[in-house]
């Protein structure tokens, strides 16, 4: 039929251009997000509990003078701190997307793989029994705990015998609860200074993290990000369900293994560096999904940007609101991000997993 053929060709002509238009719009949004992130990062360089004039801050960045204490402060505290906030936030945002895509569960955050709980118990042990106080060492214990717990959940859920998202989610939650119960018991039964130190770690903070924390964390997270972005197409097929995914020719076990490695690296490094920050990993993917829909090619970068911006912004606001002290970032993120998230859920059409 000529009429039918005509209408088909019209659709074929229109579809790519619609897609192109949507893609270029998304690209514009992505650039806007990047600009916003840079702006917030600049704010973070200029604002702090110790007042330094913008001119001095700029001078510290462009013509660093090691004998000037203000320059030293900017160089060794504010810059690594800002960068760490960007890196940690982004890592959690991406890890959250992978976790929710894999398990097809909106309640899944990176902590589901036991990463947060593993880090928490390792840190509590390090503080209580080894008396470690330096953040740079605490970080390595956190990372070790996160990795062990992640592998543990993977093995306990029997992923090698066949992938079942509900089992992974349950095994992860069960192991997390057990580990957190041990953590709680350690803090209850040890000296009160242990609890004092642990409670500050447990809310998540970028305070006092220098280059010795930033560099290893960034390297690890970069590796994790590369794996994550390589997985974006595979995640699309996995989130269609195991059967369809298999029919489309993906090997679920392989994807799960790589995804688990990425999550443990990303969330483990982030938690080890900054303490448990649960909110971003859980909500940034939902916000990104409301903006760009379920396509992982776009979901991953958007979630990264949203989470990163939120982390830096919360860190800045924590310093402003709490002045002359500061409110740690884990708390601030939820306090400013939570109402925003509820508002979005009410206003926007929810894009289900």
């Amino acid at each position, binding site marked *: 039929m000529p009429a039918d053929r005509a209408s088909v060709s019209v659709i074929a002509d229109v579809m790519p251009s619609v897609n192109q238009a949507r893609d270029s719009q998304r690209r514009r949004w992505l650039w806007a997000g990047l600009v916003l992130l840079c702006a917030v990062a600049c704010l973070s360089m200029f604002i702090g509990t110790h007042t330094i004039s913008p001119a001095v801050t700029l001078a510290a960045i462009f013509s660093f003078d090691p004998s000037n204490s203000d320059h030293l402060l900017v160089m060794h505290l504010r810059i690594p701190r800002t960068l760490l906030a960007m890196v940690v936030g982004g890592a959690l945002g991406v890890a959250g997307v992978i976790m929710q895509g894999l398990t097809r569960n909106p309640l899944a955050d990176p902590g589901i793989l036991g990463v947060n709980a593993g880090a928490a118990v390792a840190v509590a042990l390090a503080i209580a029994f080894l008396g470690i106080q330096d953040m740079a060492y605490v970080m390595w214990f956190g990372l070790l705990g996160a990795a062990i717990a992640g592998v543990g959940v993977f093995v*306990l859920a029997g992923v090698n015998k066949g992938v079942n998202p509900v089992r992974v989610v349950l095994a992860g939650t069960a192991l997390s609860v057990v580990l957190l119960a041990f953590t709680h018991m350690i803090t*209850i039964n040890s000296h009160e200074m242990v609890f004092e130190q642990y409670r500050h770690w447990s809310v998540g903070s970028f305070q006092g993290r220098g280059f010795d924390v930033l560099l290893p964390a960034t390297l690890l997270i970069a590796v994790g990000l590369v794996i994550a972005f390589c997985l974006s197409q595979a995640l699309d097929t996995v989130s269609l369900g195991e059967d369809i995914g298999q029919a489309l020719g993906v090997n679920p076990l392989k994807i799960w293994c790589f995804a688990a490695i990425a999550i443990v690296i990303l969330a483990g490094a982030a938690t080890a560096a900054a303490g448990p920050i649960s909110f971003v990993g859980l909500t940034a993917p939902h916000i990104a999904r409301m903006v760009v829909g379920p396509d992982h090619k776009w979901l991953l970068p958007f979630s990264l940007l949203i989470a990163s911006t939120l982390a830096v912004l919360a860190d800045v606001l924590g310093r402003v609101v709490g002045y002359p002290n500061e*409110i740690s970032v884990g708390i601030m993120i939820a306090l400013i991000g939570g109402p925003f998230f509820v508002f979005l859920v009410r206003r926007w059409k929810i894009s289900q997993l």
Partner: protein
Amino acid sequence: MIQRRYPLQAAGAGYVCRLGPFSIVYQPLHLLVAFALLLLVCVIATYSMTLGKFNLSLLQVVDAIRGAGEGGVKDRIILNIRLPKVLTAVFVGAALGISGAVFQSVSRNALGSPDVIGFTTGAATGAIAQIVLFESGALEVALAAIVGGVVTALVVYLLAVKAGVVGGYRLILTGIGIGSILSALNGLMLVKGNLDNAIMANLWLAGSLHARTWTHVYPVLVGVVVLLPIMMVLKRALAMIEMGDDMATQLGIRVERVRLIMIFFAVVLAAFATGAAGPIAFIALAAPQLVSRLRQSRAMSLFSSALMGALLVLAADVLIQWLPFQASMPIGRMTGIVGGIYLIWLLTRSRQF
């Protein structure tokens, strides 16, 4: 009374029991599980009354409860100290088990628990505020926890209602948002509060069965005894809603009304439980999951979940009394360990679900 084998599902077979115009479908395995759980609860409850600083024999316990005891100190210990404690454990566990089963059905999510609607976090906020900000006594703390939890649940529900409909998905997302705001507030109070008060709050968060009297038992006992039968009647409608709102409406179920009533009852039960023993971790999440694994069926079971919840709390309590060392082992954490390890063990054993 006619009995007929009736193929209900591919996995197992059910029987129909008819009496005049009434009929009821039952499955032997389900009855067996419920009966075994009931038996175990009774045995462990009686046994746990023999444990304590003052050793009593099983016979003395049974006699004292029958009212045929020899009188004196031993009877008073059993009737005024150990019996209230054991009954608190049983009914707190039962209330949480029921509550969890309802929330897992409403949210259609294996991770469902009263926490989905922000209840647990809200209860903690109320209690921590009382302890850290107002330094009040135990009764005020319990009341504040109940009020905090119920108000939070109400706020989440109202925020999730859109045009008179609360979708399961929007309820989950709103619960995540409100829950993370409140848990940030909790963290803030714990970090900024005076260290002694923060340690007190940390102890409350661990839950307790110490020094429970009959005033602790009655509210939660009456709640379970009154609400469980009503909820078991409404259970069928809720199970239909699991197939989707549209399908359930076509089958003649008033979806919103059933959902609202069930959520309300579940929150009330969780509130009574929290008031009686503080936050007891993981029972609400684990009990329904354990039951569905034992029964090899995904169908929700309120009665068996209640028994499983009671069993877990009792087992945790007995385990605490068995442990030889002098460390303080809060019941709320022990339930996490017992329930978590049991769930992991079941997960590694079975390939199903």
